[in-house]
């Protein structure tokens, strides 16, 4: 059980939660995630640890409401408990390169850059965050992100804030020396479409790139193999070997295909939740 201490809307479908989870906060490291279950009979879903406060014993997670479980989560309020929360899972992110590190976030992904970029900056790297969204109002956590990096670059598809265009277009400009300049390393977290585009932008340019893969997961401990992805022609379990992998070695086609395995069932379940209220504390 993890009590929700703070709940804050970031966009109409994205919410930030600060939850009480002292044991996880104590051992959490950038790049790791938790698995939560919101109700009896509920699914286990993975969520990135956006930030942690070891002293306060809290974790920050940012959740986009896309289906059944994320919507149930959205029905919980401050003071309610998340039924199950386990972590930290996955390998802590190791950044072997020093220099100018560019983190790119899309959707909930921007949040996941918080603790990571802060740590890299403390280590002495030059840090840039490219935060992208469709329009100004969908850009999340600008103030917080500005506080953890040296350069914050905003991008919107419609030009309502910052650079007018996609994050990958801005990234290409940086690679050509514009703004904070060419990255020595790129880290991307967000929708598959975006991380795939980032991967293609840095391919062949001698810029090591890491992406966070988000396959379907159940246990998160290496027990089911449902999260398997192919990287460098080898099968890996994203929950224990990842979730970050060398972008240029990832078999994206397979990853995209496997994520669509339950589209029909997810739709069926989502339609039912639309007219069903979560009973808190149900067991």
């Amino acid at each position: 059980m993890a009590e929700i201490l703070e709940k804050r809307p970031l966009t109409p479908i994205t919410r930030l939660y600060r939850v009480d989870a002292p044991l996880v906060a104590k051992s959490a490291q950038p790049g790791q995630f938790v698995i939560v279950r919101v109700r009896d009979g509920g699914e286990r879903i993975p969520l990135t640890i956006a930030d942690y406060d070891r002293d306060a014993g809290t974790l920050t997670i940012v959740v986009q409401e896309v289906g059944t479980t994320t919507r149930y989560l959205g029905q919980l309020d401050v003071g309610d408990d998340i039924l199950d929360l386990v972590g930290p899972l996955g390998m802590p992110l190791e950044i072997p390169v020093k220099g100018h590190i560019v983190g790119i976030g899309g959707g909930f992904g921007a949040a996941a850059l918080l603790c990571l970029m802060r740590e890299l900056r403390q280590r002495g790297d030059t840090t840039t965050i490219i935060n992208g969204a469709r329009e100004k109002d969908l850009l999340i956590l600008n103030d917080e992100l500005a506080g953890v990096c040296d350069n914050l670059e905003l991008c919107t598809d419609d030009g309502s804030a910052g650079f007018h265009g996609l994050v990958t277009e801005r990234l290409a400009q940086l690679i050509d020396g514009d703004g904070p300049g060419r990255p020595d390393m790129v880290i991307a977290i967000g929708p598959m479409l975006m991380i795939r585009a980032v991967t293609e932008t840095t391919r062949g340019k001698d810029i090591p790139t890491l992406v966070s893969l988000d396959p379907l997961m159940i246990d998160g401990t290496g027990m089911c193999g449902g999260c398997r992805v192919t990287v460098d022609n080898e099968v890996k379990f994203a929950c224990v070997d990842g979730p970050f992998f060398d972008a240029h070695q990832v078999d994206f086609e397979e990853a995209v295909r496997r994520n669509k395995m339950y589209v029909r069932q997810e739709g069926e379940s989502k339609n039912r939740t639309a007219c069903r209220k979560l009973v808190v504390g149900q067991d």
Partner: protein
Amino acid sequence: MPVKRVQKTPMPERDAVLRSHDFKEVNEGYGIAHAQFEAERCLRCQDPICIDGCPVRVPIPEFIHQVAKGDMRAAAEILRRSNPLPAVCGRVCPQEVQCEEQCSIGIRFKPVAIGYLERFVADWEMEQPAVEIRANLHQDQKVAIVGSGPAGLVCAGELARLGYPVTIFEALHAPGGVLRYGIPEFRLPKNVLDWEIEQLKKLGVEIQCNVIIGKTITMDELMGEMGFSAVFIGTGAGLPSFLGIPGENLNGVYSANEFLTRVNLMHANDFPNADTPVMVGRRVAVIGAGNTAMDTVRTALRVGAEHGMIVYRRSDQEMTARVEEHHHAIEEGVEFHWLTNPVEVLGDEDGWVTGLRCVRMELGAPDDSGRARPVPIEGSEFVIPVDNVVLSIGNKPNPLLLQTTKGLASNKWGCLVVHDGTSETSRDHVFAGGDAVTGAATVILAAGAGKTAATEIHEDLRANS
């Protein structure tokens, strides 16, 4: 007086056609009349060699004698002294290669139905009004148990009875290990497991789910700042193997662990009331022929497959599943492709499974394990059209704990190494048992290991207090 009867008293079972569409238990259990009728068959041998077949040496004739006399309480006490999980083992032990294989009347007749009787006594016990067990935790050293499978549960119970405060840490959101997420309801009803766990709680055992030792808490923290004096590792062998054949990552290919976990732990059979789905097409091929494979194929039928198939590269002679499960699978309409080795999973342009390319095998000379080695018959390739493939070809110990714990020795299969004939690992005050040490084995071996370890932990802690 013992009565000579050739046949075992049959186990009442639910109709095969009806049961293959639901999850209610297949075996209905003996009534008291069946049990006493069967108990009369035991000769109470001078030299009861049945006991030699039992890994924990249940005093078989003694408890059966009490059943015959009608003193079920006495029978239950005798049973529990050596086997802390009788309701589970009576259901899932491979009796035909253990106690019942040895039974002396088995030479000419069918052996005494030791497993059915064990189950009867344990079920009788569960029906009795709850006895107030009171926790009397008087020892000043506390013990941590990692993993809540049979090894961990039994070790915890024994130590609590010795007065130690015990905390079980379990990675998943519900305790039980394979008994929870692996073995299906129709073979091991979860209320049996829940009852055992309830008894542990009454004994004062604390169970903390959602804690992964090595991730949430390290072994050093457990034994350092958290103040545990000893640790028992019962983390099982939960890492699924894959064949490494082309097409294994197509949509519709599962490991048996994933398939069974979706149904047993996450209740996918109740989707969309429960939120986790499972994909089952019309035709499901399960690769392997152990207990896990039988559970998987029978589960597939229950969640809607029209054809459930076992594909195995050896013959039924080499199959490792319990005989009873094989029989039940046949009755429920499972199709068997013996001497058939899968070489590729085929898919359509969208990446969904359409078939399994196989090659026929014949049996050659025995291999290292003493079983005949299957060799491919040249030019015998053929395709079985299927919608799902589930791999059930074995599990290895999970490396999570080893990755983050210094000083724990393991062998080349990833199994924890213990000192000869004990449960001691290479770290002081850290003990281990069950599948984590032996590799995938049986419930009774895990339970037995948990019990032995509890005794050793007790001695270790006495020597240190």
